[in-house]
């Protein structure tokens, strides 16, 4: 039974270079800033950093880890903040904020040492 105000168990991701590279390639994102540190630095970044498709995927994972395999994810809306460079720890926290019939909205934030990396909402439908 989901209740509004319920907090999700936090999820911490150890953002190693391997994590950045393997998630970028698993999302078929071959932009060099996600796998080539020299070029990422040349382009003004501190290091390689997570891509947006992975952010969306991690937000989904964070919510479905808690909600279980039976829920349906209807919508993931994220706002992008500070980059998430290799060697960061990315920690997701979340709370159920809305309830409408069998649909719930979970508000989510993924933070690292630089601040808010992603913030947003996930709409799920429970069977």
């Amino acid at each position: 039974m989901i209740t509004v105000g319920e907090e999700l168990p936090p999820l911490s991701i150890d953002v190693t270079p391997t994590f950045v590279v393997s998630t970028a390639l698993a999302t078929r994102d071959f932009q060099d800033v996600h796998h080539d540190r020299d070029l990422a630095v040349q382009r003004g970044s501190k290091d390689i950093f997570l891509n947006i498709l992975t952010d969306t995927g991690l937000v989904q994972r964070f919510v479905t880890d808690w909600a279980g395999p039976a829920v349906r994810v209807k919508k993931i809306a994220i706002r992008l903040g500070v980059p998430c460079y290799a060697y960061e720890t990315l920690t997701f926290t979340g709370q159920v904020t809305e309830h409408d019939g069998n649909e719930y909205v979970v508000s989510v934030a993924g933070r690292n040492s630089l601040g808010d990396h992603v913030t947003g909402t996930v709409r799920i439908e429970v069977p």
Partner: protein
Amino acid sequence: MTDVEAAARQVMGWGESARRPGRDPVNLPMVRNWLEALGDASSAYAEEAPPAMAQVWTMGGLHHTRADDDPLGAMLAVLDEAGYTSIVATDCEQTYHRYLRYGEEVALAARLESVVGPKRTALGEGWFVTTRNIWYVGDEPVAEMMFRVLKFAPAPAEPPVEPLIRPVVNRDTAYFWEGTARGELRIQRCEACGELRHPPGPMCPSCNETKPGWLVASGLGEVYSYVVHHHPPVPGRTLPFVVALVELDEGVRLMAELDAPPDEVHIGLPVRIAFAAVDDELTMPVWRRR
């Protein structure tokens, strides 16, 4: 209407782009790679793919080039041309109408929704470009994405505040700097033997007594030697400038900046001391011609 707005209106007029098919049908091996990479152990994806993979199926791949009718590509080119050369994504909202089943062929169409600007942002002046992607299986829209980027002209970096190089003031030198603050050129004098000395120190090099005192010098002298400083840059100074070692009428030598064009300086040039207040705490001695 600005050129950017005119171009935006034109690209919006294109409506939805042609549908670009994904490389592969929705398939389990790519899903398993994705789950493995993201550390997602969910058992929900035996029959259907994770909804957050919607965009993955139509990613352009390693040798991707944008289609001519791709509205985001067209708008970014216009903004590049207008000087808004940097980009950062700000929002991504994906709506899943249904989950995708293995074997389904997905195609992507896109349209330009809005171009808003120019806006002043922390990153610089820029335009918010919002596009909508729609993924189709056959003619059925199965997922949508609102994607917004800020295309901006990077703000020029603020020149760093130049730290002033400050002289070290200690018990041996305090009298000197208190003097400059009052418009006096104070020269150390041994209270035991009367010998004058500069720069300051605790012990008289003549009689070895540690009884330093001082007198106020006339501030008149002649250039004994000098250098013209061309490089490296010095905070608070315009290059080149002259640093002169001046022999005072009292007999000791004192080094300070000489406020004169380099080509008018020569050894023997008569000078007098002046004082330049840097701030409330520091007044520097400076030589001027007389």
